[in-house]
């Protein structure tokens, strides 16, 4: 008796001796868990603050107030009002003349060039289209706000270090002085950068916008949805409701699971080899992009739709079969409508993933430089994530903020799609 008591005491002594160490390791283990989560949280914070702090300034654009005299001698010396003649008129000279009224002392060739590059190179094009739209402007003085050149804009936004030597930065001492003088006269303002949402791509950061890419992505998503959703849902219905248990169906399932995990770039190779080389479809077109993304999204939609079909309780099926509906009628009239919200939710999430996908699009030539906003899925076009990739590669400082802005636009649309999916789920989800 006393012996066992002795043993018990010995054991509890051993246990007690080890306890402190064990509790410490318990604490450390928990601590590692918290650290892991904090790691992810901190990364997200750094990530978003980095993108937002780089990108928010792209939503405004520096503008200069200019009074431009649309000199008839320059635009249309023969007074014929001939469109072709006016198109080739020297609008650059008008811009330069107007700028010279602010700085009459400018004379040398170098200074004139510097002065002219204060404002965007798109200014003369803008004048041209204004005049072509309204001939009555010729001979008048117009008072407009024109976009500053991207380098000047960067300087205003504090992204160019003027303490560096003149040769090491993109704007000259003269330009800095002029901009400061113009600022003192309140001739420079920061205005909302509407170009970002109304223009296609451009080599000049201040003229570049995401609309072309946005429309391209939109066309692609439509095609992806039209192709992948019916196919995916039909395949899911078959596998979930009709498929016999046999080798062939097992093989189909293995294929679907593997397709879901194949690297996206491989789908790009498929698109290049099959759609473009074999079927001769146009390169860079949203049609091909949409088809490739549809193939990628297809397994995702199948998996989501099967989950939605599984969540419909068997009592529904049993009741329908019990009153004499055929198997097809049961599935299409009763199970399918109940599973539809779940299928749509899964599909939208799959489509959101397709929207952010760019690797396969590089393969099918969607990296082409496309200025025009596409008007059909057969036109050459960029896509939103590819636009991010292209701008990230561009050397101009002005494209860094525009890349971040394009990322913000992309993230906004992803958020929109995902919240639509969640809203759908909450609104139509039935708890059985």
């Amino acid at each position, binding site marked *: 008796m006393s012996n066992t008591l002795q043993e018990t005491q010995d054991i509890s002594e051993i*246990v007690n001796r080890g306890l402190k160490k064990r509790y410490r390791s*318990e604490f450390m283990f928990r601590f590692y868990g918290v650290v*892991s989560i904090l790691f*992810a949280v901190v990364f997200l914070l750094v990530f978003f603050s980095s993108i937002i702090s780089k990108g928010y300034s792209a939503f405004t654009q520096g503008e200069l107030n200019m009074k431009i005299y649309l000199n008839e001698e320059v635009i249309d010396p023969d007074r014929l009002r001939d469109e072709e003649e006016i198109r080739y008129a020297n609008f650059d000279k008008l811009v330069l003349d107007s700028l010279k009224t602010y700085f009459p002392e400018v004379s040398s060739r170098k200074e004139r060039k510097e002065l002219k590059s204060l404002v965007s190179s798109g200014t003369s094009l803008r004048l041209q289209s204004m005049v072509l739209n309204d001939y009555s402007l010729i001979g008048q003085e117009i008072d407009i706000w024109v976009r500053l050149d991207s380098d000047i804009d960067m300087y205003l936004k504090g992204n160019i270090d003027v303490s560096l030597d003149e040769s090491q930065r993109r704007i000259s001492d003269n330009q800095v002085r002029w901009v400061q003088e113009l600022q003192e006269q309140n001739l420079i303002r920061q205005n909302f950068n509407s170009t970002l949402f109304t223009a296609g791509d451009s080599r000049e950061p201040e003229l570049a916008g995401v609309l072309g890419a946005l429309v391209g992505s939109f066309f692609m998503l439509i095609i992806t949805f039209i192709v992948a959703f019916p196919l995916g849902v039909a395949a899911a219905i078959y596998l979930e409701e009709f498929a016999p248990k046999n080798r062939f169906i097992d093989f*189909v399932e293995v294929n679907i699971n593997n397709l879901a995990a194949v690297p996206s770039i491989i789908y790009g190779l498929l698109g290049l080899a099959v759609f473009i080389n074999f079927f001769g479809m146009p390169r860079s077109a949203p049609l091909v992009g949409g088809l490739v993304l549809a193939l990628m999204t297809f397994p995702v939609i199948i998996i989501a739709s099967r989950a939605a079909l599984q969540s419909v309780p068997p009592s529904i099926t049993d009741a329908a079969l019990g009153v004499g509906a055929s198997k097809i009628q049961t599935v299409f009239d009763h199970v399918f409508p109940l599973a539809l919200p779940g299928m749509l939710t899964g599909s939208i999430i799959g489509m959101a993933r397709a929207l952010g996908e760019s690797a396969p699009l590089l393969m099918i030539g969607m990296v082409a430089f496309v200025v025009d906003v596409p008007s059909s899925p057969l036109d050459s076009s960029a896509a939103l994530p590819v636009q991010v990739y292209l701008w990230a590669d561009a050397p101009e400082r002005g494209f860094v903020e525009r890349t971040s802005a394009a990322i913000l636009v992309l993230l906004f649309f992803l958020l929109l799609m995902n919240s639509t999916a969640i809203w759908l789920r909450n609104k139509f989800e039935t708890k059985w």
Partner: protein
Amino acid sequence: MSLSLFLISIIFLGFLSFFWGKRKALLLKNTESLHSLPRYYGYYSLAWFAAPSLLIIFLWLLFSESFVTNQVISLLPESIRALSPNEITLRMNDVKNLAAGNLIAGESFIGLEQAAANYNRITKLVQDVAIYSSLVLSLALFIFSYRSISGTLRARNKVEKIISNLLLASATVAIFATAGILLSVLFEAIRFFQIISFDDFLFGLTWSPQMAIREDQVGSSGLFGAIPLFAGTALISLISLTVAVPVGLMTAIYLSEYAPSKVRSYTKPMLEILSGIPTVVYGFFAAITLAPFIRDFGVTIGLDIASESALGVGLVMGIMIIPLVSSLSDDVISAVPQAMRDGSYGLGATKSETIKKVIIPAALPGIVGGILLAASRAIGETMIVVMAAGLSARLSFNPIDAVTTVTVQIVTLLVGDQEFDSPKTLAAFALGLTLFLVTLALNFYALKIVRKYREQYE
């Protein structure tokens, strides 16, 4: 008849065939009893009407282009037909461009206008044949089906048979997609291995795919030894896994075993955000924010870190994979039966001891499967490495060096102008084939492990 008019009339006639079929059934109903509901007779005639049109349109889309091209080539002058197939393809591109109404830059050949006219003529002819034959066939079959409608026709069963076959066909698209991927990559890869030997590709130590433009050019014969690419891919994947596996696993353990439900409800969506960020955005972050930071950090501690170092790329890729590892581990950890935990607690084990000595060993196969899936994701990841990793193939296992990966090389080789007979372009497909086979094996094996593990505890 133009194509759009044809499509509109097909759709219109399709509706009409449905309503006529249904109407006949409704009329029959007055005199005899019907086997099926009237609308099934409508679907029945619609199916007969639509089938030939759809089939012919499908075939036309598939083969019209190549048929017309071959016909036009056979009409080309003798001198051009004697050229090599690639030369002919180039000429045909000119022909197609001219036929589409575009201007042709540079010199061309005699008979180009004639060929372009032929091209347009034959295209039109093929289109007309397709359109009229499908219309005639559709109408004929519709009339046949319309006449066969009677009270005893088992319309519902027939329509349902068609529907279930369509469903089956949709499911088999998965097989076609896999086969399509495999074949498209395989064919080009085989062409590549006809030029470059298999051993040189798989075991060669130098990768420099620049080919000589002129025959007599020096020093650019093109070397396609893929070992540096495999090494670079392995290095970057390894770095990313060293980040993702511990963090993802600990996150999953903490969330499923320790975290109060409130923490969980905040953390889970956050991980979902992490997995929802497009990879191109991660790539931008890696290239613009993290890489300069790491390089500057290296300068302060006296290390010369490349601005495209494997370290930075691997880190960001690891963060991208965290949600994948975490959600897969979460699944397998919560599949471990509660009884095993209870048994461990009953013996006096602390929570962490239970996790370390009972749950993780029990869940190990599932976790390993998850890690394999994560590895396959890391190997196939493209945008992050394209934007932030190096381009030059360098055989190095040093994480602060710039290395390149298989996916980066595929993109570099295929973006821009390409001709499909140079080994440079075909090499991308050989790399793609390797990538496909490796990830396929990893996925297949991983899914098998995970499935087996699940069955064990069910």
